Structure formats: C-alpha cells, structure tokens
C-alpha cells in the first residue's frame, strides 16, 4: 500500500472527492496558461500536491477557483523559471494595435458567419496567441465560466481590471479572427 503523505486518510478522501472532479478544468487552464501539454501536466500535478497540503486551511466557498488560484501560482513559478526567454512586456494601456476596424453592414454579416463556422482548433489557436493577462481572463470567463468576482480573486486584481481586460481581450480576439478571414490584409 502506498504511503499517504498527508497521513490522514479521512482528509485525503475528502480532498479527493472535492478536488478530483475539477481535474479537467484545472488541466484546461494549465494548457492555456502554459501553452505546452507536458508543462501543463507537471503544473497540474504540482497544483494538486500543494492543494492537498493546504486543504486544512481551505474555507471555501468554491473549490474550482481555489484550485485555479493555486495553479496560477504554480504557473507563475514556472514562468519565473523560464525567465531566460522573456515574453514581450504587455502595455495594458495601449489600445491602438487592437482597434477593431470600422463597421459596415456587410462586414457584420460576414463576421457573424465566420464566427459560426470557426472550429474549435481555430479558436483555440487564436485564443492561445493572446497576451497572458487577456488570455487568462478570457479563458476563466468563457471556458471556465467564472464570475468577475471569482476571476478577480484568482488573478489577484480588482474587478474593474477584470472588466477592462475582458473588453480588450474580446477586441483582440475579434481582430485576430478578422485577420484570419482576410490573411492578405
């Protein structure tokens, strides 16, 4: 029989019941945050180890955001480790690059059709290309279905920042989506 590192079978059982059902969700977030399947696996495993260790201090309310917050810290550490290959600094105030184009009726129709046609792999690719804070916010909102308050707690930012990031994230995704449609433009 393997040795239980927690030493408390009752606690381990409760943790198992509470945390394991969220494994796919945690793995999904890790995939989007780290953009690499094997890094994501490592991060998720580390996340569950840490979560079990801190399970005594867990006071709710919701297990999923709690696991996300731990995962995010694990990923942060991973980013720090990779610091030799820094990513572009992100200027949240600079909106110019992502301004959506001007509108016309025709364009609106084209856009709606295009969105309905897009398959999961296209959207995944476009989403993965977004800069980190925007990708994270959009994934927590659209895929993980967290409330703004929960996103704010996971990302450790005020709710107002969640709102502005989400607005920008969607604008960026939309531009990328449009660019996809007209690659020559």
């Amino acid at each position, binding site marked *: *029989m*393997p040795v*239980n*590192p927690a030493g408390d*079978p*009752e606690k*381990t*059982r*409760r*943790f*198992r*019941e509470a945390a*394991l059902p969220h*494994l*796919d*969700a*945690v*793995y*999904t977030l890790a*995939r989007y945050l780290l953009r690499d*399947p094997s890094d994501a*696996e490592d991060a*998720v*495993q580390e996340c*569950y*180890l840490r979560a*079990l260790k801190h399970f005594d201090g867990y*006071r*709710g*309310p919701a297990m999923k955001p709690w696991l996300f917050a731990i995962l995010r810290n694990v990923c942060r550490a991973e980013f720090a480790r990779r610091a030799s290959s820094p990513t572009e600094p992100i200027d949240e105030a600079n909106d110019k690059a992502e301004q959506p184009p001007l*509108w016309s009726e025709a364009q*609106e129709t084209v*856009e*709606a059709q295009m*969105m*309905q046609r*897009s*398959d*999961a792999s296209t*959207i*995944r690719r476009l*989403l993965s290309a977004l800069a980190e804070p925007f990708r994270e916010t959009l994934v927590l*909102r*659209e*895929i993980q279905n967290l*409330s*703004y*308050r*929960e996103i704010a707690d996971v990302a450790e930012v005020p709710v107002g920042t969640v*709102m*502005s990031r*989400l*607005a920008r994230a*969607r604008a960026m*995704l*939309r531009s990328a*989506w449009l660019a996809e449609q007209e690659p020559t433009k």
Partner: protein
Amino acid sequence: MTCDEAEVLLHALIDGELDAGHAREVEDHIATCPHCAKQLAVYREMSKAITAADLSYTAPASLRRRIEATLPEVRKPNRRAVLRGFAMGSAVSAIAASGIVAIVLRSDDEARIKSEIVSAHLRSLQAGHLTDVLSTDQHTVKPWFNGKLDVAPPVVDLTAQGYTLIGGRLDYVDARAVGAIIYRRRLHVINLFVTQTASTEHRSARTETFQGFNIRTWSDGGLNYWAVSDLAADELAEFSDKFQAATRSNASG
C-alpha cells in the same frame, strides 16, 4: 452614458454581471446608439461561438493516474464508511441547495465586504437607481423580494419612529445577490443590506466607519444586517435599535 463607457460595460451586460440599474443604463444607450448596438451583437455572437465550440481539454489518463496515486483511497471501504460518505455528500449538497453559505469571515474578507457594502451604497445614490420597488408600504416591499432572493428580508415600517421606508432593491455584495431595504431620515438615505448566514447566533450591533460612512452591523435569526448611511453614528444606532425592536415584535406578534 458615453460610447467609451458602454464599450466596456456591454461585456458585463453579456456576462450577466450588471446590476439592474447599470444594465438599464447600458440598454438605454444601446437603444439610441447603432454603433454600440452592433458591438453588442458581434460580441454576443462571439461569446456564443466560443461557448459552443467547447474549448476545454481532457486531462490525460496518465496524469489522472499519477495524481490518484498520491491520493490513495481508503482500502476496503466498509458499509459504515460508505454511509458516512453518503451522509456527508448529501449534507454538503443540502447546504448548497439551500443557498446557505457559511460566512467564515477572515479580517480581510470583512474589510472587503465592508468596502463592497459602501460601494453598493454609493452606487445606489449615484446611478439614479435607489429602488427597484418604490413603496412606503411594507406589505408591498416584502413580497417583492419573493423569488429574487433565497431569504425573506424583514421589512418593517418605521415612519412613526422617524425613518421612512422608501422601497427595496436587489444588489450584489461579495458576488451574491442581497436584499437592500431603503429608508430615509430627513435627507439621509439608509441602505439596509440583508444576507443569509449559516449561523443563527445573535450578534449585537456595532458601528464602524468606512470611507466616511457609518456602518452598523448585527446578526439575528440567521440573517446578517448592514445598515449604511451618512447619518451620524448615534442616529444610525437608534435606527438599528428601532428596526430590531420592530422585527422582534413582528415575530412575536
């Protein structure tokens, strides 16, 4: 509302994160602004397309096994252990279903909730959205909350005591719907926020000051109360005393 404001807030509208007052402001703006109306339509479509595409991943079986290996199941579960597990599961879901959330407040939680309460109070004064139901009749205000909340906030008329009932409103504090009962004392507005708590313990009222507002908070009969106002502390204390006395006499009478 300007287009700049609407362009951020329309996302909150799509996500169902706006209170009734702000939602109405955004909708009013969109009704008169074709540009923002199109933005809303496109982003709503985009959000739908993302949700429909199912972009989640499934954890590899090997990862699941690795994690499970670090969390060994209790071997040979006997009948009693199974029953215990079942009982605990149903207790947890019963708590979830009844909407009771144990508010185990850490001090930073408490500060955050205080700040949210004051923000909700300020919002109610600024947005021209003090009440969802405007009535000085407690028998109109109280039933209005039915079905909107998982609690029935006690609504009492304190006009005779100098605090006029103005109406009720649905608000959000700590990401939860809460009932707000609004009273007026001369020109001062009092927002009384009511939420459910798992504890039925009576906590007597105490007054704190936050951003220049007085907050008087107490717990009674499984409900937490926060009265917020720019009223002087002694008058707010008087209000909470009168309110508690009136709810108690209602309950016994």
